[in-house]
């Protein structure tokens, strides 16, 4: 009995030592080496692909943002600021539940199923809003032209892109709100439309932050002297 207890203790000791050595290797040396190489070769990407405009950081090229009007007193959900291109809905984005001392950038999906009435309502309302917001006099939006990404929440809630179809749908509205020629805004969208990588990988898309940043630079040319 004593020997078997001793054997077990020796075995567990070996297990612990193996774990500690491998932790030093895979949990300390490896991440430090990769971080060093990443910071040396790809500093911009390793630190979050920040976008600057007019000398100020305006976010990450990879992370979606909201472009809303300030909320009025007692208003719970902010209204979209229609001067800017609007991103996809993000109804599944969580709120800080664990560490309330921070206001962290969180990620998340709705996880609602296709037959859930709640999702049916969300999609129906989003579609009505897209049609309403983007219809300009003389150019009503046909509900059949609203692409799926405009009315569904993304997986991360931080989707930085919209489909080129949804970007084009917003052109007339943005032009009307910003007092710009429609063709100029349409050209901006064309410039910011990315095709599939190598022609077949991923999907065509428009980066909303890049597009809105370019739009703002068009509206407020060079604030700096």
């Amino acid at each position, binding site marked *: 009995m004593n020997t078997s207890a001793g054997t*077990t203790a020796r*075995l*567990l*000791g*070996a*297990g612990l030592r*193996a*774990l500690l*050595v*491998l*932790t030093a*290797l*895979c949990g300390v040396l*490896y*991440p430090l080496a990769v*971080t060093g190489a*990443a910071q040396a*070769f*790809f500093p911009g*990407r*390793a*630190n979050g692909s920040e976008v600057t405009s007019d000398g100020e*950081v*305006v*976010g990450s*090229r*990879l*992370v979606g943002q909201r472009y*809303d009007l300030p909320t009025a007193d007692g208003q719970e959900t902010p209204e979209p600021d229609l001067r*800017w291109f609007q991103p996809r809905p993000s109804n*599944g984005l*969580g709120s800080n539940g*664990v*560490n309330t001392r921070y206001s*962290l*950038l*969180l990620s*998340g*999906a*709705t*996880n*609602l*199923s*296709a*037959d859930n009435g709640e999702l049916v309502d969300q*999609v129906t309302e989003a*579609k009505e809003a897209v049609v309403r917001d983007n219809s300009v006099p003389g150019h009503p939006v046909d509900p059949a032209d609203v692409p*799926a*990404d405009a009315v*569904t*929440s*993304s*997986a*991360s809630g*931080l*989707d930085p*892109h919209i489909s080129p179809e949804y970007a084009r749908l917003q052109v007339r509205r943005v032009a009307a709100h910003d007092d710009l020629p429609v063709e100029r805004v349409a050209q901006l969208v064309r410039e910011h439309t990315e095709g599939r990588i190598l022609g077949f990988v*991923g*999907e065509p*898309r428009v980066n909303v932050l890049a597009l809105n940043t370019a739009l703002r630079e068009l509206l407020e040319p060079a604030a700096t002297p």
Partner: protein
Amino acid sequence: MSPVLAGALQVLALVAALALAYRPLGDHMARVYSSTKHLRVEKWIYKAIGADPATEMRWPAYLRGVLAFSAMGVLFLYALQRFQGALPGSLGFASIDPDQAFNTAASFVANTNWQSYYGEQAMGHVVQTGGLAVQNFVSAAVGMAVAVALVRGFTRSRTGELGNFWTDLVRGTVRILLPLSVVGALVLVATGVIQNFSGIHEVGQFDGGGRQWNGGAVASQEVIKVLGTNGGGYFNANSAHPFENPNGLSNLFEVFLILVIPFALTRTFGRMAGSLKQGYAILAAMASLWLGFTALMMWTEFAHHGPAFEIAGGAMEGKETRFGIAGSSVFAVATTLTSTGAVNSFHSSYTGFGGGITMLGMQLGEIAPGGVGSGLYGMLVMAVLAVFVAGLMVGRTPEYLGKKIGAREIKFAACYILVTPALVLCFTAAATALPTPADSTANPGAHGFSEILYAYTSGANNNGSAFAGLNADTQWFNTTIGIAMLLGRFLPMVFVLALAGSLARQSPVPATAGTLGTHRPLFSGLLVGTVLVVTGLTYFPALALGPLAEGLAS
């Protein structure tokens, strides 16, 4: 180009890349596990462990090594989380509650990576990088070690010896996983995955305000998360988060990393068994299931049946624009047919049938191509069952790779096959029958039942993905899923190693005219049939209540 065609081309590109890596990686792994030489760094590690790398172990000793190492892993990871609040480098995050800490520790040691916590708001640098990412390496290396031990059981004769666990563990980590991870992590950073230790910091926003970002060693953890078929994301949104998976190319690369070792291990198997064709037969069975599931998934997701998707005009809920339907479907199938469980889109918002395909993928036992190591040993156990079935048909004693499959062997194989379904179905039944667990579901009706079935399927099969509407951070789910993950990982390993020990003791029987050619396409077909029949008979009633009911109604 139509999205469907682009999707098909992406699958083709994936097949080409996997085919290119198959021979060199498979042969490299065979050399690693057969070599008699030790690297200098390995000698230091053996000295630190206090193990003699040349000692041969019989199956009970090999198993004791697996269990002792894994038990220390659970304890260490549990302690790390419980003391997080007091550790430096934890970003000020609090210690994790006991039930969630147990669940997470069990989850990462069992190569499952089920997560009932929100990565970006719960775990600091020390736990993520020093704890969770380490288990991503070593739990994968343990899986490969057990698979190699089973292969040695087939190839060795009149001995009970299966190799040395410590040697296999260390070599798998140092010579296979680490070098691939260093290269892969840098490729991911080049596509935009972050890699820094900036912690929580403020970043300016378009409207002039700021947001707090949680920066960390993401790329170094992301690569082993997929390469080791682990799946635990740094962030809550997992591989859907732009910092974990920034574009279509990183997406395809991550799918490649998920599949590359499990597929290449069939080459390792063929090489070690002395007949590459035996490996190809297993590969053919795995690959046909994987391609078939991928095609089915693309079909149902592009067809987007279901009330909400018909109004929206596409099944884009819970999917990212940069991946689209095709990139999401390919990832979802790869992650559930292996034991990965990383997600780039949320399976709960797939079509009814799409959700069913992800569940069925796991219920096959994750063998097409399966987890690193666990996929190969799972498929070899099914191969043992397939030759047994074939033997019954013609009335001969079945043989596989020159070893007789007798009563003892088939008992171990049967026990292996019964473990996970028993865990899945019993826990699902209990959770459905009891009053409180069902309160955790987010969706009504059949989909609510699917959330619970998915949770235990994912846990017991060591997948880790979720129908994430389920609020799994309750004492009930943390505890029961934790138990399901540990039993679902280590009980099958007991039977695999016992089977390996039993095979290694036998003398080889010479092949005769009546021996079933297990290197032929006919056997691959028989193997696929056996897998589908066993899984279908086991899970059909449960699937009918969940995803099938939902899919047929829409």
